[in-house]
């Protein structure tokens, strides 16, 4: 299986960085989010990122320019956004991976696009 996962990866129905939570909703897996950030692979299909890099997020994430979902291919982002009505797609050439500080209540890292297209 790809990247050591014990299941198949599908960029829309079974994206790499997400797993079903207890309530059946998709949840991000922290270790895989970090893997995507640093290995520079797509959080949906787990292949190497291309250009531009895309992020998906709700209006608040877009307004803050800080996303929880890992970087994606443009086409993978568009595919995922179709499954989640609140998500928009943002494109960038580069991003920062921001780890949480001690005071952050939200312990998830964020991605901050630094060269928006």
């Amino acid at each position, binding site marked *: *299986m*790809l*990247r*050591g996962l*014990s299941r198949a990866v599908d960029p829309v129905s079974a994206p790499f960085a997400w797993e079903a939570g207890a309530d059946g909703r998709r*949840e*991000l*897996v*922290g*270790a*895989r989010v*970090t*893997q995507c950030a*640093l*290995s*520079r*692979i797509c959080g949906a299909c787990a292949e*190497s*990122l*291309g*250009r*531009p*890099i895309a992020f998906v997020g709700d209006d608040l994430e877009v307004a803050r320019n800080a996303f929880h979902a890992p970087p994606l291919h443009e086409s993978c982002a568009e595919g995922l956004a179709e499954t989640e009505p609140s998500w928009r797609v943002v494109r960038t*050439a*580069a*991003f*920062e*991976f*921001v*780890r*949480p*500080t*001690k*005071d952050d*209540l*939200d*312990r*998830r890292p964020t991605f901050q696009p*630094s*060269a928006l*297209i």
Partner: protein
Amino acid sequence: MAISDVAEYMHLTDEQVEELGRELDKIREEVEASRGADDAAYINKMIKVQRGLATAGRLTLMLTPHSRKTRIPGAVAGAALLGVAKILENMEIGHNVMHGQWDWMNDPEIHSSNWEWDTAQPAEQWKHSHNYIHHQFTNVLGYDNDIGYGILRMAREQKWNPANLGQPVYNALLATLFQWGVALHDLDVERIRKREKDPQEMKRQLRQILRKGRNQILKDYIVYPALSGPQWRTTITANATANLTRNLWAYTIIFCGHFPDGAMHFTEEEIEDETRAEWYLRQILGAANFEGGPLLHILSGNLGFQIEHHLFPDLPSNRYADISVRVKELCAQYDIPYTIGPLHKQYGQALRTIMKLSLPNRFTTSNKPPQPPTRPDSVEAPPVDKGRKSDAERPPRRSELGGWSRQQRAS
């Protein structure tokens, strides 16, 4: 002895650690805000110089071997030019581009998603084994495969095995064939030995490595020698010399990054719910710098500033020298050790560790900095396997909003 809590080890309060984190964040913000034309000019010039050297080397080797007078001097010059070109491409250009240091330029070529470097390891596998495994789990025993690369015992906590007696030989082989050692690194030899590696993933990776390795061999040992005509042997020898030079240089620089005596190891407890500031602190304590002039630093990919590279792996390498002045000041202010020394001394310490740890611990003493007796964790950590744990073996990190295991601070 491995550290399980960096703040406790350094006798720093939580507030001091976070303050340090904020100071380092400031450095990052300032560099990011000031990135611009000068930085872009730097990397473009570096690439131009590297390609010029490579072209000059290849042309020299094509044109000079046909006359007895010029054959030997031409081969030496060609090998030297090509060797320097390969060093620059691997160290200052490829490694740094793949870290995303230049992504902000939105250049179609100079981007972490595109760059395929001039060595046998596929870029995708390097970005996994180096950018992720090494930079995320820097010097954490059982996690960071760079602690010995699966063939060398580099920490006293790593279990000794009779096979370690051979590590002076493995070390020499690794240095000589470094390109191929790096090519195989992401396969994770330890997991293969334990039969834990997923066979499909291994096949996929091996196919990638074989394709890339074949292309490297074709380029340096078939195509370019063929262009030299009857003197193809001279070109093969020169190309092999260039590759060997790059191998030995890259090995030396990389081994100076985390193996000198002052670079510490950590247990997995340290990384559980690690904050950004604690991550910064682990990077400082787990890395080692070496001294040198600008040319040495460029040829080393600015990895003489290994501490700064580990603090800010995605900031442009040409900035590390300036950043190091401020990082050193901060370390002095917070009484944090800043490991630095001449290149020969740093490598000498790494080599001494390789020799010493080829033997069981009872025959040698540690060269790591002495532990104050009052440290609560000043006992020998239990021995750890060399191999990296899989996701399934690691405790899951909580991903939900607001959930973390340490006591929440009042805002």
